[in-house]
């Protein structure tokens, strides 16, 4: 197990190294840099003439005149060694300040969505498999297709409408106005949790529909295996049998796709966040790209990819714990 852990950790580090290079290349890709953008902002309409020398000066001020490899190593070593993601030019402060709280909120949304997804899809999928072809099973299938077919933002609008019209509560944002600027306290955390429920349900909807079908299909396969019949032939009671044999294996495909789910949630989050007015990273990423504020964009890309890679790492570990065959193959 230790060997397996070390292998996987090394794999994760290597992956992150290549990811960081790719992120840096993406940061370099848009034409122009922040120096030009800054000059444009500052001097457009003033009639001032900007020479190449002025631009070079500005560039040197921002440290953008150094060759790309040097900038990459400076950037990445600051991140790894000091947790410093560089300077957010457009905000005139550090990237850490700009994205700090938003990261925690994005992660809160991610984890609450994952938890809602698994809490619903795993037991319900198993139930549907055991009661195959029953009324409940068909109803759940319809629910799943709805989950696949309904766009998230539409669902967000519907829930927004319902909660404002019928419950007189605002779902917009992650905090009630009273707590928005208050320091962290138990009440504020509870307030956050209550605001997380709606976004988590919206984002979990399609993932749940998908995982529910996966669990159902795997469970159906496992229910018909000889090992289940063999356990039944040993006189094991039915419910114990279901939990010990097929249920345990039906979790495997879910566990092995935690990274995919994280990816999907990150991709769907910006649109939902826009509708619900949530402070998260997606919109900031878009804005920083428009401003050519590359350290902000880079930090967000790097953090989101790291989260996905880390989730994949977690799913490998969970899988190895759940299924002894995994360790055998990986040596």
């Amino acid at each position, binding site marked *: 197990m230790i060997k397996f852990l070390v292998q996987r950790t090394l794999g994760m580090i290597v992956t992150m190294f290549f990811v960081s290079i790719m992120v840096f290349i993406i940061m370099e890709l848009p034409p122009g840099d922040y120096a030009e953008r800054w000059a444009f902002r500052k001097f457009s309409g003033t009639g001032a003439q900007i020479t190449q020398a002025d631009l070079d000066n500005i560039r040197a001020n921002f440290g953008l005149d150094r060759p790309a490899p040097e900038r990459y190593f400076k950037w990445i070593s600051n991140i790894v060694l000091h947790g410093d993601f560089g300077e957010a030019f457009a905000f005139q402060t550090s990237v850490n300040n700009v994205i700090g709280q938003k990261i925690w909120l994005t992660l809160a949304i991610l984890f609450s969505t994952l938890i809602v997804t698994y809490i619903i899809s795993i037991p319900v999928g198993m139930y549907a498999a055991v009661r195959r072809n029953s009324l409940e099973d068909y109803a759940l299938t319809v629910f799943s297709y709805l989950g696949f077919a309904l766009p998230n933002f539409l669902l967000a609008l519907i829930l927004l409408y319902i909660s404002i019209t019928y419950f007189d509560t605002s779902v917009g944002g992650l905090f009630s106005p009273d707590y928005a600027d208050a320091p962290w306290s138990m009440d504020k955390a509870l307030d956050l949790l209550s605001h997380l429920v709606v976004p988590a349900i919206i984002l979990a909807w399609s993932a749940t529909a998908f995982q529910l079908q996966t669990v159902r299909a795997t469970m159906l396969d496992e229910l018909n295996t000889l090992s289940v*019949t063999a356990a039944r032939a*040993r*006189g094991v009671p039915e419910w114990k049998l279901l939990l010990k044999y097929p249920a345990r294996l039906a979790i495997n495909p879910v566990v092995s796709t935690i990274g995919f789910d994280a990816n999907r949630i990150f991709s769907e989050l910006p649109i939902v966040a826009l509708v619900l007015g949530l402070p998260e990273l997606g919109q900031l990423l878009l804005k920083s790209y428009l401003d050519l504020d590359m350290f902000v964009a880079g930090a967000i890309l790097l953090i989101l990819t790291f989260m996905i890679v880390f989730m994949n790492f977690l799913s490998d570990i969970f899988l190895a714990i759940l299924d002894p065959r995994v360790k055998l193959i990986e040596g």
Partner: protein
Amino acid sequence: MENIKEKTDDNLLEVKNLKISFKTDEGIITAVDGVNFTVKHGETLGIVGESGSGKSVSTWSIMRLLPKNSIIDKKSSIRFRKKDGKVVDITKLKARSKELRKIRGGEVALIFQEPMSSFSPVYTIGNQISEAVLQHRDVSKEEAQEIAIDMLDRVGIANPRQRFKQYPFELSGGMRQRAMIAVALSMNPALLIADEPTTSLDVTIQAQILELMNELQEELGMAIIFITHNLGVIAQVADKIEVMYLGKILERGTTKDIIQNPQHPYTQALLKAIPRLDHIGERLNAISGDIPSPLSRPTGCPFYTRCEKVIPGICDVKMPNPTKLSDTHTVYCFLYEEKNV
């Protein structure tokens, strides 16, 4: 064991008029049609037949292990004498009853053709044997482990303590089948159903497993129903044999009756299809044609479509009645029925 021995006159298992069908998308398929057989304490019954003859279905029904779309006919009965002397009709038990669970494993145990897939890959061998022991004996976890290790040792597995902690994929095929036998016997059943236990093993391992089963039967005194398509194997282990074809029994007798004096054209053809060391160089006689689909069962004798001695106008009209050739030997064939009439 002693008090059971005293009652050996009584049958341990009496299967009567067993008829099993399956509801499928193509309609109702009858897999077993009017089968009767009995097993006495400590004896070995062999059931021989091709794939699809219904031999597994009829024995799995003894433990009610058939899938949900199966229907056991109301007139069928499977009467089993439990260790406490009471006789129950297994077909009448409720699917989730405690009584049925006690019979599964505790009275009747089953070993399968595929030792790999009959173990769950995510639990150790020891876990799965202990589970069986704990289900049927009033012992602690530690005692169950000791019983399991002792059983592994008894079925000839070296280093049983180490094997106990291993996963099924860490054992060889022959080893896994030994472990499967250990699971079955750890529950101390009165009847062991062996469903083609040696089919997936190579010949030397096959011989070892057969020998092991013979030894254990002598030691523990349980009865065995041995299912196979291999007449060579059955001749080594069985006291008596039922020959099945397409859900019906065509011939029954002692092993000697069936192997040395086969009467039904199907049994004769099966025996001719076995390669023999004293007939090297001769071609084997294959039975022509395929076993008919259970969806289009022939009326009359199920074998008439492939039978060399078919009597047109008789065999394809109705199923022959049993003809007793001796006290032990019965055949279902018009060739003999006519002689008696």
